[in-house]
């Protein structure tokens, strides 16, 4: 997200002379990014919808089959019903929770994994650990993404978390590469040399002193992974390799393949529009966050 540097320059210091940190500067800059704030607001709306599903406040009847086959939009069924009379509105709202669940689990775990392996590879760059991690990343990168994800999901079929595992096992790679590069840069700085000098153990240096300094990368990368996970979940569910129990936009779009030829588009439209809204909003949010946390622009 490009913005005019002069117009968004943070105030040099407050009246009381409080010291500005990278985070406070980033927060200030983020708040000035209108598109980012709109995206963030939309994401919050989706999050509330997901929380409502998790707490059982709404969309509890997503599996009921009381409506007729392909009922049109009505006061009772806001988005109509599907082939077996299920309420498409409730199913599409329920799918928000599925998207958040998948997005959060995959984003958090793949970011943690990427951070751990990337920092180890970066800190021990040129050594055996680095070679192993780079080899692993190279191997996984050489396999087409959806082929690999489908293969893992297929191999673990029956496991409710097969899709999560499949995505985590590939999504950590980009994070890991970024973190490795950052750690290689950081490990030569004075504070790390000082830690070495006073005898701090290597793993303490890595995880206590270096990794916290890559948080801005991890945060941005997590948001990107979140969006990628949602999109992948939809594709995998569409292919029958995704959500096992529950509902997702991918399954709804998959259902719509039985319906569009009969001229019934409600499932397809509901799932597509809601997914587009969330992915678009998260992309806007992610872009703004990236701009806000970019040290070259913030400092």
């Amino acid at each position, binding site marked *: 997200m490009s913005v005019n540097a002069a117009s968004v320059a943070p105030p040099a210091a407050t009246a009381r002379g409080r010291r500005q940190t990278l985070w406070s500067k980033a927060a200030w800059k983020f708040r000035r990014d209108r598109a980012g704030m709109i995206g963030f607001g939309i994401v919050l709306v989706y999050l509330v919808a997901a929380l409502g599903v998790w707490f059982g406040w709404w969309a509890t009847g997503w*599996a*009921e*089959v009381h409506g007729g*086959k392909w009922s049109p939009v009505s006061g009772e069924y806001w988005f109509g019903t*599907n*082939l*077996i*009379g*299920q309420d498409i509105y409730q199913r599409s709202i329920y799918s928000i929770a599925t998207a958040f669940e998948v997005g959060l689990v995959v984003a958090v775990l793949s970011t943690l994994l990427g951070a751990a392996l990337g920092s180890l590879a970066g800190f021990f760059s040129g050594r055996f650990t680095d070679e192993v991690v780079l080899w692993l990343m190279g191997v996984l990168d050489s396999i087409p993404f959806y082929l690999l994800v489908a293969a893992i999901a*297929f191999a673990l*079929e*029956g496991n409710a978390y097969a899709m999560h595992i499949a995505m985590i096992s590939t999504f950590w790679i980009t994070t890991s590469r970024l973190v490795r590069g950052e750690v290689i840069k950081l490990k030569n700085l004075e504070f790390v040399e000082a830690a070495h000098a006073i005898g701090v153990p290597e793993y303490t240096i890595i995880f206590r002193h270096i990794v916290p300094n890559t948080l801005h990368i991890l945060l941005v990368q997590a948001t990107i992974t979140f969006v990628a996970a949602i999109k992948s979940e939809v594709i995998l569910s569409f292919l*029958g*390799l995704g959500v*096992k*129990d529950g509902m997702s936009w991918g*399954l709804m779009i*998959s*259902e719509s*393949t*039985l*319906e569009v*030829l*009969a*001229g019934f588009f409600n499932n397809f439209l509901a799932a597509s529009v809601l997914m587009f809204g969330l992915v678009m909003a998260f992309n806007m949010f992610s872009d703004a966050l990236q701009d806000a946390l970019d040290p070259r622009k913030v400092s």
Partner: protein
Amino acid sequence: MVPGYHRRPMPAAALWPRRPPAARACAVAALAWLLLASGCGRDTSSSGPPAEVPTAASMKIYRHGLDQGPSSLDPAQSANIYANHVAINAYDTLFSYQYLARPYQLKPNLAAGWPEISADLLEYTIHIKQGVHFVDDPAFPDGIGRELTAEDFVYSIKRHFDPATRAQGAWLWQGRIAGLEEWKAAGADHAKEAEGLVALDRYTIRIRLTQPYPQLLDTLTQGYSAIVPREAVAYYGREFAVHPVGSGPFRVVSYDTARIVMDRNPKYRQEPVDIWEEGYDPATQGEFGLERIQGRSPPFIDRLEIHFINESSARWNSFAKGDEVQYVTVPNEQLDRVLATRDPVTFRQEISDRYFGYAGLEAGFVFMAFNLSYPEFGYNPDPERERRNKALRCAIIKAFDWPARNESFYGGIGAVFPGIIVPVVPEFDPDMSRESVTRDVGGARRLLGDNGWNAENLPVLTYGTTATVLNRLMYEQFRAWLKEIGYPPEKVVLKPYATFGDISRAWKESELPWVSKGWGLDYPDAENTLQLFYGPNGSPGSNDANYKNPEYDALFRQAKVMLPSPERTAIYQRLNQMVIDDCVAVTGVTRTRVHLWHKNVIALPDREIVGGFFLKYVDVADVPNGGER
């Protein structure tokens, strides 16, 4: 097809799409062009009358559409209708079904007439037609197809018992034809005779049974019984699975995963059709122009193409486009566009104007069954628990909403019926009580409550199915119905399988407490569905429910050796009632298939029994530059 195509028999290997080197291909093309240019395109080797030489423009081509293709063209592997579509058209079978008669009626095909049957019903003597030849093929000396003899039939059936063949059809005759198992145990040496299956002379077969087998002739209509030449099996080895050498109405020209192309067999015997003997009914079939084939000898088309199009929308589009496939089974999602009314089935005017069509019940049914080997639902060492299990099964059956299932997944035009005797067989009783297919949520709840079942103690029901969106919706619908009778949704667990082969294996290995499947009749006799619940057929046999009822088994054994009669029908119906009373299965629905075909196609398509036996009678009218052959 290149312009100037001619029907000169070529070595099949030259016709086979093996992608010869470019130079060789060019040489073949140049040679073919030279031959054509010099007017050498006359069929000279055919034993029948000289065939006309159709050009590409005048060829009569019929393009058939199917939802799947065969995985093998070897008759020993023709386990489904897709393989049968090829097997019975590339090869000959002793018997067949009358083209137009419904219910299906047997007729001799390669057999010269009906068999002579001994008084004890154990010995069949069958004479076969003389002068029938296999197609020309490099497998034969000088590439000329030899005459088909009784020995070929004996060899073809024995192949099913030869471990080297890895055939799938042995179950049809296992324990029925005397001596075949012993022949197999002795090493499956084709030079040795099997006691119950011998060629008495060049044109006479004798089959000796271990017990009466009223469906024997039906089994001899199937692709499994198609007659193959021993030389071709030896010549092609494993390649025989993609290189048919038969004596049927067509010969295979090319085959891949998208389509099979079969040309008219110029040697096919001349047998004029009498549509009245084939069961022609002007009242229901008069509009299809079938009189045009009266007195003519099939096949009437020069080329048969069967296109395998898995995706229903693509299949429909190919049909509706006009110049691709000429037949389609209407997918459910198109029914609203095709049908004006559903009961009775009538077509919209714009459809009737463009296509011929009819709707008919499938020869089979869809049902679900409990696997009674699971103590949670079926047989249990504790008699009290077993009694409660039966109540649980009956409650689940009462929860099932057949009309809704029919509306959602079978276009609302399926025939829901009680029991396991399907509507297309003569033993079906339309007056049976429909209680077992009538939803009764209150009754189901009462049944559960009266027998001590509640949300806490109900067992987990693992619902296995292939991972398709349609099957998933069926599961969700079922789970929702069970919820209405108090079955917690979290106790109805989906177990997806990647392929039908996977779940089929799971059923065979008794890995699932719930079996949800369709069954297509092998022959039009209720015995074929009643055997699905015959105790000795338990897993890995066809009795996936593992139903074991001594009374049922005894009655089944009694009936299966009886010829059709009111007494046998009465026994069949008692067996049917036992399955209903014991709450073994949620059953069933027979789907109605809606067939459409182009108006220039003269045919009555059918894919129910055997599959594709009608294809040799198909004719195509209004051929550019051509007329009736």
